[in-house]
């Protein structure tokens, strides 16, 4: 029986008749080949997107994605799925907007519904400093040709009637900004859809294959040592998020990265009550309601390094106090599950995409609290970087070298609260 690969309402109906017994595997589980043209370490969104675009844009299909566990269970599988491109600096705006544009066609491109929901993203301002920063950001974003606007209190009230807009609250809301194209997507679907599409183009996805070292000969990469043996490749791209320092250590250099717990939680499912994404850097919380009905919520990182995928409950207490203050009707809504990820934080809150001291070895990391939205864009430019051996123009400013020259891209304002 021929297995069904293509997804559509028709194939779904057809398969319903055969009790869904003929669906093909979304991606294969091949044995590793001895060598590949390129190896991507890390089967999160960034690694998978890189493999996909290597195959799609550069015709490089003899590629392996090497993942120590099952794919998509790192930060990609545990993030709060906020997507937006309203970043302050030109360099950031360029790469995040590329990403958002790619997201806008990704379901069709991958033939996998990633459930992109561009329901609009509101940031709240609570004081004059917030307003100033917001004006600066919104003006810059607009002049970069990206949608963004300031909101009045009345506009906010109309969009989010359940928000506490009392002028006497402790941190009264005095204004806000909106990116209408911002929103959320289904995190797992992004990883799975990319994996399926990359696999379809010939990429080998090697799950349960942990990279344990790099083989480096006179400053050049030769391949990776893994829990399933050595695999050779002239080019290796590493996208392991929170584990970047560990992998850099294997290659003999250090990174300007701290691995921090970032926590999130979901409520029990509720009927639709809240139809945008809302964030407040001042009271430290952001939230949205998923298509399944849970309120998905996050805040800032814990204050210490950790690889535990878990943080301290005091963050939750503060996060939920902020949530109840902003949304008094959520007081009796219940937290259902709470977890953490390991985010890779750079000193300037911007990523590192590009070359390393080892020739042929490239790193893509430092996306910290905000790299889900960057997945397609980052994969696109990182694939280019790997294929050409030189950074894509959008990736160039995000070189590791900037920490030496001082040309940092300070996006702290953008991530005062994680998202």
């Amino acid at each position: 029986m021929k297995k069904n690969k293509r997804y559509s309402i028709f194939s779904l109906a057809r398969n319903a008749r055969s009790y869904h017994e003929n669906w093909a595997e979304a991606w294969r589980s091949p044995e590793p080949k001895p060598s590949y043209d390129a190896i991507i370490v890390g089967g999160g969104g960034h690694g998978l997107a890189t493999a996909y675009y290597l195959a799609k844009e550069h015709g490089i299909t003899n590629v392996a994605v090497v993942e120590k566990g099952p794919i998509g269970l790192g930060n990609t599988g545990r993030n709060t799925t906020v997507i937006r491109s309203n970043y302050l600096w030109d360099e950031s705006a360029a790469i995040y907007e590329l990403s958002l544009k790619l997201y806008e066609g990704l379901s069709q491109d991958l033939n996998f519904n990633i459930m992109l929901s561009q329901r609009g993203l509101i940031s709240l301002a609570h004081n004059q400093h917030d307003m100033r920063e917001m004006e600066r950001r919104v003006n810059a974003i607009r002049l970069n040709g990206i949608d963004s606007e300031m909101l009045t209190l009345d506009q906010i009230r109309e969009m989010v009637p359940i928000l506490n807009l009392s002028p006497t609250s402790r941190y009264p809301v005095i204004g806000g900004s909106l990116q209408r194209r911002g929103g959320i997507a289904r995190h797992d679907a992004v990883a799975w859809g990319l994996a399926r599409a990359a696999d379809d183009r010939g990429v080998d996805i090697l799950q349960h294959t942990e990279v344990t070292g790099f083989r480096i000969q006179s400053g050049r990469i030769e391949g990776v040592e893994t829990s399933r043996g050595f695999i050779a490749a002239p080019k290796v791209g590493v996208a392991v998020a929170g584990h970047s320092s560990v992998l850099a250590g294997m290659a003999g250099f250090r990174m300007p990265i701290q691995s921090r717990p970032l926590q999130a939680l979901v409520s029990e499912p509720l009927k639709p009550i809240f139809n945008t994404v809302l964030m407040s850097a001042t009271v430290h919380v952001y939230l949205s309601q998923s298509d399944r009905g849970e309120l998905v919520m996050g805040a800032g990182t814990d204050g210490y390094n950790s690889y535990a995928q878990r943080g301290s409950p005091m963050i939750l207490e503060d996060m939920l106090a902020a949530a109840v203050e902003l949304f008094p009707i959520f007081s009796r809504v219940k937290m259902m599950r709470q977890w953490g990820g390991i985010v890779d934080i750079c000193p300037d809150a911007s990523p590192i995409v590009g070359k390393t001291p080892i020739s042929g070895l490239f790193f893509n990391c430092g996306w910290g609290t905000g790299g889900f939205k960057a997945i397609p864009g980052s994969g696109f430019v990182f694939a280019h970087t790997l294929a050409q051996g030189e950074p894509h123009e959008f990736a160039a400013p995000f070189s590791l070298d900037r920490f030496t020259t001082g040309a940092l891209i300070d996006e702290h304002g953008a991530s005062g609260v994680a998202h």
Partner: protein
Amino acid sequence: MLQIPCPHCGPRDEVEFSCGGEAHIARPKESDALSDAEWADYLFMRANPKGVLAERWCHTLGCRRWFNVERDTVSHEILRVYPMGEPRGGGSGA
């Protein structure tokens, strides 16, 4: 919520402390002699190990003293607390 044994005040909740990141990073004395890369190494590059990390903590809301801690970044277990200035791994345990 970590419980951190302040060498002066004893075990206290994490809320009273602030973490100062990796310990034992000495400020270069003759910084002019350093290349930009060497200076960047001091400023930004960090070990960030998965496992035991020597880091600095300050009992901010308590005695305001800085001290060193060896903590496992996977289990969050605190293995050792020792004064500023004392080298890693050596000295008396706590």
